[in-house]
């Protein structure tokens, strides 16, 4: 028993984690952490301290705004909660992260060159409700809400820290100016209990201390920004997505792709049917009528006769083409008639035994039909069979379709018989394809699809 189990192998997740190799000298650092460990001169005169400063300042402002906004929304929602609309307003609170997260991802680039990708999956169905439920179910939404709350809380801490540090450095560096502008206030600059700076000369001695502090603060603020950035990244990007989730997402996207492909084929079929085909039939009617009026042995008669024959041939070809693009019969009548139709066109006699109690989901029908057409093509091409049978039934919630031929057997998935494509096609609808084809035959192709 040889079974082809459709499996899906995936490349590992791309490395987007921040633990990149530490850059040596001469290489551009990519994060604030890497900038910090460079030689002091290279760090202090780079843009990094300033970037860290901008990051922290903008973060504190943003945090303040978010805190206010959340407060307003919460109060509004609470006040209106006697009405339904209030509950809707409250339900929007966790979604604030969706607005903040893109800003945060963009701000992160200030101190961390490694981009964070948007983790959200687009909703599978259209409409606001689908979007809403999908977002609510996603872990990413709640992570982003967490990042938003963190920003609101830490924004206030940022502000306090900045004010204290800024005033310290400002007073020390500006001491001579302060004293000079205010020479006769008598008290001078109160630096602490029992220590006041009264003269400009004395004040100048404070400047080196201020410069030293400035350097210390440059390091401090960069470290603070780097820490904040790392926390934000942890919340926004999370650990790398589980491989299992990736497989599910990929399978879903493949199924969507197949659906889109089918829809497109249906559209093409309809366009051809409603357009070119009707036009051609009308043309053959016109030419047929013209033939009646022309003596068959005249030049014109011969030409019209020839044109008429050509148009009829074209019509036949177009009909085959359209059927190949999308079997209208499958849409109209379901699997059994469509399979009977295909079987009727096979070069060997095919008996069809399909008993289904109801119409099946469209994608299941399409996959099964595809398998049968492909299998019968293989029977015609490779098997040298004299007859074949197609059987179909529903068993325990699964559609089971078998194609049996009495040919030479030895069918091999690796021999380019389209079997791999079949297995792929079936796996999209969670089906399993089995092939039993000993040398000398008979060959059995079996498909099970849950429906």
């Amino acid at each position, binding site marked *: 028993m040889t079974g082809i189990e459709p499996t899906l192998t995936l490349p590992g997740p791309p490395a987007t984690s921040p633990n990149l190799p530490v850059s040596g000298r001469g290489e551009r650092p990519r994060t604030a952490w890497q900038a910090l460990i460079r030689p002091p001169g290279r760090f202090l005169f780079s843009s990094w301290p300033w970037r860290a400063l901008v990051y922290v300042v903008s973060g504190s402002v943003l945090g303040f705004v978010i805190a206010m906004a959340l407060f307003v929304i919460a109060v509004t929602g609470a006040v209106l909660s006697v009405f339904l609309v209030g509950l809707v307003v409250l339900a929007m609170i966790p979604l604030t992260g969706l607005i903040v997260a893109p800003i945060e991802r963009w701000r992160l680039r200030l101190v961390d060159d490694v981009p964070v990708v948007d983790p959200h999956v687009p909703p599978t169905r259209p409409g606001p409700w689908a979007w809403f439920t999908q977002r609510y179910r996603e872990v990413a939404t709640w992570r982003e809400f967490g990042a938003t709350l963190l920003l609101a809380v830490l924004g206030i801490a940022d502000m306090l820290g900045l004010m204290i540090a800024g005033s310290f450095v400002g007073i020390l560096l500006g001491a001579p100016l302060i004293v000079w502008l205010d020479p006769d206030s008598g008290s001078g600059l109160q630096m602490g209990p029992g220590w006041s700076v009264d003269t400009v000369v004395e004040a100048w001695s404070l400047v080196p201390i201020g410069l030293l502090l400035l350097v210390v603060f440059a390091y401090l603020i960069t470290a603070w920004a780097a820490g904040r950035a790392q926390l934000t990244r942890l919340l926004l990007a999370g650990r790398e997505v589980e491989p299992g989730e990736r497989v599910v997402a990929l399978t879903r996207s493949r199924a969507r792709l197949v659906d889109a492909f089918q829809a497109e084929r249906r559209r093409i079929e*309809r366009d051809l*049917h*409603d357009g070119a*085909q*009707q*036009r051609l*039939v*009308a043309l*053959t*009617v*016109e*030419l*047929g*009528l013209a*033939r*009646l009026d022309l003596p068959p042995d005249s030049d014109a008669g011969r030409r019209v006769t020839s044109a*008429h024959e050509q*148009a*009829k041939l074209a*019509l*036949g070809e177009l*009909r085959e083409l*359209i*059927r190949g693009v999308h079997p*209208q*019969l499958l*849409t*109209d*009548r379901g699997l059994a*008639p469509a399979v*009977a*139709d295909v*079987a*009727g*066109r*096979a070069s060997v*006699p*095919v*008996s*069809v*035994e399909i008993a289904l109690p109801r119409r099946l989901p469209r994608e299941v029908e399409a996959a099964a039909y595809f398998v049968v057409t492909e299998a019968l093509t293989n029977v015609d091409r490779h098997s040298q069979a004299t*007859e074949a049978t197609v059987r179909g039934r529903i068993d325990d919630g699964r559609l089971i379709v078998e194609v049996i031929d009495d040919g030479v057997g030895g069918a091999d998935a690796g021999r380019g018989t389209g079997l791999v494509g079949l297995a792929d096609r079936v796996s999209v609808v969670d089906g399993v394809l089995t092939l039993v084809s000993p040398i000398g035959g008979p060959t059995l192709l079996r498909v099970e699809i849950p429906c």
Partner: protein
Amino acid sequence: MDPESKSAVLRIVLAEDSVLLREGLVALLTRYGHEVVAAVGDAPALDAAVERTDPDLVVTDVRMPPTHTDDGLRVAVTLRSRRPNLPVLVLSQYVEQTYAAELLDTADGAGVGYLLKDRVGDVDDFADAVARVAGGGTVVDQEVIRQLLRRRSDPLDRLTSREAEVLALMAEGRSNAAIARALVVTEAAVTKHIGNILAKLDLPLDADDHRRVLAVVTYLRRSGSD
């Protein structure tokens, strides 16, 4: 053109959703001396037109609004169940035994035609089919027959290839003389073949011309319902 199909003027209701082809068909039917009393583009309109005009024959496409699936055929089948004597000729875009079988199931398949749409280009043959169906005959597209013959089936397996050819022509509603001409054999030979076919398919030999197509109809029903 078969000389045996000199037909009376028929009052016809035509249903076809493509405007271009509808006009072409009206021209074609008019050309052969028939009167198209109503030309409509969707299934409900077809139903209404038949009730309003009480025609001698309905010619309809399968695929049309409202659902663009097999609306035309459904209306044809319900019309036949309401008025078993109303001849109906269905034009289909594809060969579908199920469709043909459903249609032939109505009123014993008398006055029923199922033709591939492409055939209307062969104007003489089409005019012929129109006359046959209106006269209570049965016309089934040769392509349907060909598919049936290719499929494995017990009674038809017993037919020789020559007999199968004759059956296919019978299914198109041809007379013995026409079959003899098509296969380039004598009429006597054709008569003999037909006798063999009817015997093999367990159908009583009958003077009635219509019994001949029962050979096909019976088979179609049997294969169309599996």
